[in-house]
C-alpha cells in the first residue's frame, strides 16, 4: 500500500514548511495556506489500509487511516488553514515554517500506525512547537517548554521500549497496570497538560507571537487526547485526572490577568472534559471526546485569534490594561463573545453539541460525580470565557482606553471562517455527527436540553453581575505547581548555602586571612547556586544526555 504512504496528510505540510522557509512574499503566503488545504484533501482521500516499512528489523506502519484519524486530521488541517490565513501578515519566516512543521507532526501523530512512528512524530511536534515559541524571541520560555516535552518524551519512549516485549510496536489498548503502560500514560498526560505538570501550557503559550499561540492552542493537547483514545480507552484512572484538570483550569482561568494565560488554563480545563470521556471509554464517550476535541479546536482558535488581534492592535493582552475596546474593535469583540459562549456550550453553538455528547455519555454510564462536577464547571466556564474576558477586555466602559492600531483584514477573515464553522455546527449538529457517527443518537436540540443549558448559564450570569467586583482582574500572577521546580530549588539552594557558610565560619577556627578566603568562596558558591536558572549550553547538553541515560536504564530494566 505505497499509495497510502505517499498520500499521507503530513507530506504537503512538511514540503510546505521547507518551501515557506525558502520563499518570500506572495509565494510564501500562497504556500502557507495551500499546504494545509492540500493536507485537508488528503485527510479524506488517503486510502484505507496500512502501509508498512521495514526499518532496523522492525516493521513500521507510518500511516494507518481510520475514522478517528480523519476527524482529528480534519480539525488539525482546518485549524492550520484558518491559522495560516490569520498569520498572513506575520513577518517571521521562522514562525511560518515552524507552524507547518508542527501541523505536519500533529497529522503524523493521529495517522501513525505503530508506537515508534507515533513517538517520532510526537517529538517532531515538540520541536515544531518549541520553534514557534523561539520564533517570538521567548528563549527562556522555549527552553522550559522543550525540557518539559523532553521529559514527557523520555517517559513515553521508556514506556514504548518496555512494552515491546509483550506486544511489539502495535498500537493497542493498554491498561495502566504495568510499569510500561504507566510510563506511556504519564508521557501522554504530560502533553495533555495533566496535573501536576499542567503549568507548562500557561507558561509557554502566552509567550508565542500574536499568531503563534493560535497554532499552539490547537495541536499538542488535542493530539494527546487522540493518543489517549487509541491507547487508554476506558482507563478508569483518567476520570479523576480529567476532573482535577477541569476544576484546576477553571479556577486559574477565573483569576488570571493575561487573556492568553486565561485561555491557556482554559485549554487544560476543557481537555479535562475529554480525558474524563476517554476514561469512561464507551463508544459514545470516545466519540464525545473526539467531537469535543474537534469543537474545542474551533472555539479555542477563535478565542486565541481574538486575543492575538487585541495583542497586536494594542501591544498588551492584560485585562487590567484593556477595556473600552468594543467601539474600536467591534468584530473582535463579537468573535471573543462567540468563542466564549461556544466554550460555555450555549445552545446553537458547536460547544453545545459536543458537551451534550459528553454529558450524555456520563449519564448513560451513571457516572454521577463526573456529571455533576462537569455540569458545575460548565457554569464556571461561562464566568471566565463568556463574560469575564469580553467584559473586562472589550465591553467595560473606560475613559481612556488603549489605542488600537489597525490590523489586516485577513485576520478578520480567519475569525469569520472559524466563527462560521462554530455556528454552522451549532445550528446543524449533523455536520459534526456525520463526522463522528458514535454521537449521532445524542439528543442535542431538544427542548429540555436547551432549557437546561440556558437556565444553567443565566444563573451563572446573574452571579457574574452580582459578584463582578470579586472577578475584577488584578495586575498579578498566580503561583502554580511549576513553582516547585522553577523557584523552590533555587530558594532551598540559596538558604542551604547560606546555612553552610554560617556553619563553616562558626566551626572552623582560622586566621583572618583564612576566614576571608572562606567568605569569598562561600559567596561565590551562593552566587553560583542562585544563578542555576541560567543554564549554559554545556549544562543543557549534559542534562539531555542524563535524560537519555535514564531512558536506557529504564528500558534495560
Amino acid at each position, binding site marked *: 500500500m505505497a499509495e497510502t504512504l505517499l498520500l499521507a496528510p503530513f507530506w504537503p505540510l512538511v514540503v510546505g514548511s521547507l518551501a515557506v522557509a525558502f520563499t518570500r512574499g506572495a509565494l510564501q503566503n500562497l504556500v502557507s495556506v495551500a499546504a494545509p488545504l492540500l493536507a485537508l484533501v488528503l485527510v479524506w482521500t488517503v486510502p484505507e489500509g496500512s502501509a508498512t516499512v521495514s526499518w532496523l528489523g522492525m516493521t513500521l506502519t507510518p500511516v494507518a487511516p481510520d475514522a478517528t484519524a480523519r476527524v482529528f486530521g480534519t480539525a488539525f488541517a482546518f485549524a492550520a488553514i484558518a491559522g495560516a490565513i490569520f498569520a498572513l501578515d506575520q513577518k517571521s519566516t521562522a514562525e511560518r515554517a515552524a507552524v507547518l512543521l508542527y501541523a505536519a507532526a500533529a497529522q503524523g501523530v493521529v495517522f501513525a500506525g505503530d508506537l515508534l512512528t507515533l513517538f517520532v512524530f510526537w517529538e517532531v511536534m515538540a520541536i515544531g512547537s518549541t520553534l514557534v515559541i523561539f520564533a517570538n524571541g521567548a528563549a527562556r520560555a522555549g527552553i522550559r517548554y522543550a525540557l518539559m516535552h523532553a521529559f514527557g518524551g523520555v517517559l513515553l519512549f521508556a514506556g514504548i521500549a518496555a512494552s515491546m516485549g509483550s506486544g511489539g510496536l502495535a498500537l493497542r489498548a493498554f491498561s495502566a497496570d504495568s510499569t510500561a503502560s504507566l510510563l506511556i500514560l504519564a508521557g501522554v498526560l504530560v502533553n495533555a497538560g495533566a496535573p501536576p505538570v499542567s503549568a507548562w501550557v500557561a507558561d509557554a503559550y502566552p509567550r508565542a507571537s500574536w499568531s503563534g499561540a493560535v497554532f499552539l492552542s490547537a495541536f499538542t493537547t488535542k493530539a494527546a487526547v487522540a493518543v489517549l483514545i487509541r491507547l487508554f480507552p476506558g482507563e478508569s484512572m483518567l476520570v479523576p485526572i480529567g476532573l482535577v484538570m477541569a476544576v484546576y483550569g477553571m479556577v486559574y482561568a477565573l483569576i488570571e490577568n493575561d487573556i492568553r494565560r486565561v485561555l491557556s488554563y482554559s485549554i487544560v480545563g476543557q481537555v479535562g472534559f475529554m480525558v474524563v470521556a476517554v476514561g469512561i471509554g464507551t463508544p459514545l464517550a470516545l466519540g464525545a471526546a473526539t467531537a469535543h476535541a474537534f469543537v474545542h479546536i474551533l472555539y479555542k482558535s477563535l478565542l486565541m485569534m481574538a486575543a492575538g488581534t487585541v495583542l497586536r492592535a494594542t501591544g498588551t493582552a492584560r485585562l487590567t490594561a484593556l477595556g473600552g475596546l468594543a467601539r474600536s474593535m467591534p468584530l473582535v469583540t463579537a468573535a471573543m463573545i462567540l468563542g466564549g459562549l461556544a466554550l460555555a456550550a450555549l445552545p446553537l453553538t458547536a460547544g453545545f453539541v459536543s458537551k451534550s455528547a459528553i454529558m450524555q455519555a456520563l449519564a448513560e454510564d451513571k457516572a454521577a460525580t463526573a456529571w455533576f462536577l462537569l455540569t*458545575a*464547571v460548565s*457554569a464556571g466556564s461561562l464566568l471566565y470565557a463568556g463574560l469575564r474576558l469580553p467584559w473586562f477586555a472589550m465591553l467595560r466602559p473606560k475613559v481612556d482606553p488603549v489605542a488600537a492600531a489597525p490590523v489586516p483584514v485577513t485576520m478578520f477573515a480567519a475569525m469569520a471562517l472559524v466563527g462560521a464553522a462554530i455556528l454552522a455546527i451549532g445550528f446543524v449538529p449533523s455536520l459534526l455527527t456525520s463526522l463522528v457517527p458514535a454521537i449521532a443518537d445524542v*439528543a442535542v436540540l431538544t427542548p429540555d436540553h436547551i432549557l437546561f443549558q440556558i*437556565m444553567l448559564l*443565566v444563573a451563572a450570569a446573574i452571579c457574574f*453581575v452580582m459578584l463582578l*467586583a470579586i472577578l475584577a482582574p488584578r*495586575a498579578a*500572577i498566580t503561583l502554580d505547581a511549576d513553582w516547585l521546580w522553577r523557584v523552590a530549588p533555587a530558594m532551598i539552594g540559596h538558604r542551604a548555602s547560606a546555612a553552610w557558610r554560617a556553619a563553616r565560619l562558626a566551626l572552623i577556627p582560622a586566621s583572618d586571612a583564612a576566614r576571608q578566603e572562606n567568605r569569598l568562596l562561600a559567596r561565590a558558591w551562593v552566587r553560583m547556586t542562585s544563578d542555576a536558572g541560567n543554564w549554559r549550553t554545556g549544562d543543557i547538553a549534559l542534562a539531555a544526555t542524563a535524560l537519555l541515560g535514564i531512558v536506557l536504564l529504564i528500558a534495560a530494566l
Partner: protein
Amino acid sequence: MTWSGTFAGLKGTRLRLAIGLAVLLIALVRCDFLVSHHPAFGIDGTPGFAAWYGIVAAVVAIALATLWADIARRPETRTEEEERDG
C-alpha cells in the same frame, strides 16, 4: 473582601441587569415545568434544577477562585511584566 465590597457597585445598570436576568431565570423555570425531562440521576430531572444548581456552581467557583487567589497570587515583578508583554 467585605460584604459591601463583594457587591461593590451593584446599582444602576448593573442592578437592573441582575434583576432582568433573575426575571428571565424565573420565566425559564416556569417553562421547565412544561417540558418532559429525561433524568439520569433523579434530581437532575426536577423542574428548575439547572437554575439553582447553576447559581450554586457559579458561587462555589468564584469562592474557590477567590480563596486560591488569596493563597497563591502575588504581585507581578517588572521583569515578569516585560517578559509577558514582550
